[in-house]
């Protein structure tokens, strides 16, 4: 066993740690900055050369009359538009517009489809209650319409589907008038006028009594209906 006194070594933990940590920290920060730059570079490159299009100079001087060929094409496009009144339905905003050209003859609050899905637990059949988008025509106009309830109306209420066709007839729900848009979709009245403006239907477009009458009187079979 040695009896020599222990030699005290120089002890400077802080100075030594600093000398090791500083380059590491610097390398870490530099690496993080480089990684961030690399990450962001495509975002910047993805827009290099993109310009606001309003800055691009027009080809034709302002005020210059369009050539005859362009006028002919513009007239041809205008001829595709309906000449008489037509119906436009804003399905998301639940608004119906009766228009002629650019003029709005009547604006009405309506109700459109919920977008919900109904599945018959017995048969597995499914129905989606969307109001379809697109351009349609009025295929038929009916006064005092009688609704022939489809299967889903019974499934939704948890009732058995009747075998007797007369059990499907409902003379009250559709109101005083109905415009047939095809595929079972109608513009019709409603018993639930307080719900107008909300998306609560099974795909049809519901209107209040006065608006429905006005639309019915203004339209004919063949009147165009735009749903968007």
């Amino acid at each position: 066993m040695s009896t020599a006194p222990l030699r005290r070594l120089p002890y400077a933990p802080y100075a030594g740690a600093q000398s090791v940590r500083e380059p590491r920290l610097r390398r870490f920060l530099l690496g993080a900055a480089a990684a961030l730059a690399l990450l962001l570079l495509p975002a910047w490159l993805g827009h290099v050369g993109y310009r606001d299009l309003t800055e691009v100079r027009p080809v034709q001087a302002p005020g210059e009359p369009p050539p005859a060929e362009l006028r002919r094409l513009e007239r041809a496009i205008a001829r595709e538009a309906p000449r008489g009144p037509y119906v436009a339905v804003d399905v998301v905003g639940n608004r119906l517009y009766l228009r002629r050209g650019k003029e709005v003859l009547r604006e009405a609050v309506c109700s459109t489809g919920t977008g919900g899905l109904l599945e018959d637990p017995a048969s597995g059949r499914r129905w989606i209650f969307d109001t379809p988008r697109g351009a349609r025509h009025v295929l038929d106009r009916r006064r005092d319409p009688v609704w022939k309830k489809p299967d889903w109306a019974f499934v939704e209420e948890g009732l058995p589907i009747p075998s007797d066709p007369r059990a499907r007839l409902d003379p009250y729900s559709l109101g005083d008038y109905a415009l047939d848009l095809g595929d079972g979709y109608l513009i019709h009245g409603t018993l639930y006028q307080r719900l107008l403006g909300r998306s609560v239907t099974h795909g049809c477009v519901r209107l209040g009594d006065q608006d429905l009458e006005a639309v019915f009187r203004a339209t004919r079979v063949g009147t165009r209906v735009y749903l968007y």
Partner: protein
Amino acid sequence: MPRRVLPLALLAAQLAAATTLGGRDPGARAAHLEAELAAARSHRLYLVLDPWTRRLDLKADGLLLRRFQLERALWGRPWLLRGEPAWPAASFALVTEIPEPDRPRIAVGAPSKGVALTAAERRRDELLAQAPTHFRLRFEPGFDLSVRGEAGVDVLPGRFYRARHRLLEGWENVGAWLLRRPLPPRVVVTLPPAEAQRLFLALQPEMRLLVRAPP
């Protein structure tokens, strides 16, 4: 020195390319009208993008049904673009599949009418909330439309918010470049979030997009 000049020259060339696009062809306006005439005769809904007036119109039969006023419209070609740009083609068909929303199920049974209708209304709200505010639509022939529903485009928080979408699209471009997929030219439009959702809900499969020629 040449090492420094080369990237600058490339950048200048890119900018020059962007400025010379935009339908300098005098027939571009006629081509657009021809395309709109064909779209009007299809009796389907279609979109007309007029980047010069910052408008995106939903039309049918030549009639304006709804106008989406754009806050900003940028035209560009991705840095890594390969192949011929489609511009100034006038008519494009949507090829992006519109995802079917997660439709809430309607309970079978006979609850009281008032309860059922309130639930139906709530379901519709859920569907509206599902519509995205940011989406990228691909059209054929090669053309992309990036829709960004952002409030406060020109304020600093808006710029930060926008950065994440730019980041995603930028990396998509890099991915396409690495996989040697063609990168189509693109218009980036910015409009309020609710309007972007409305635009998304108006989309239909294979819908046509017409891009107006310069006025």
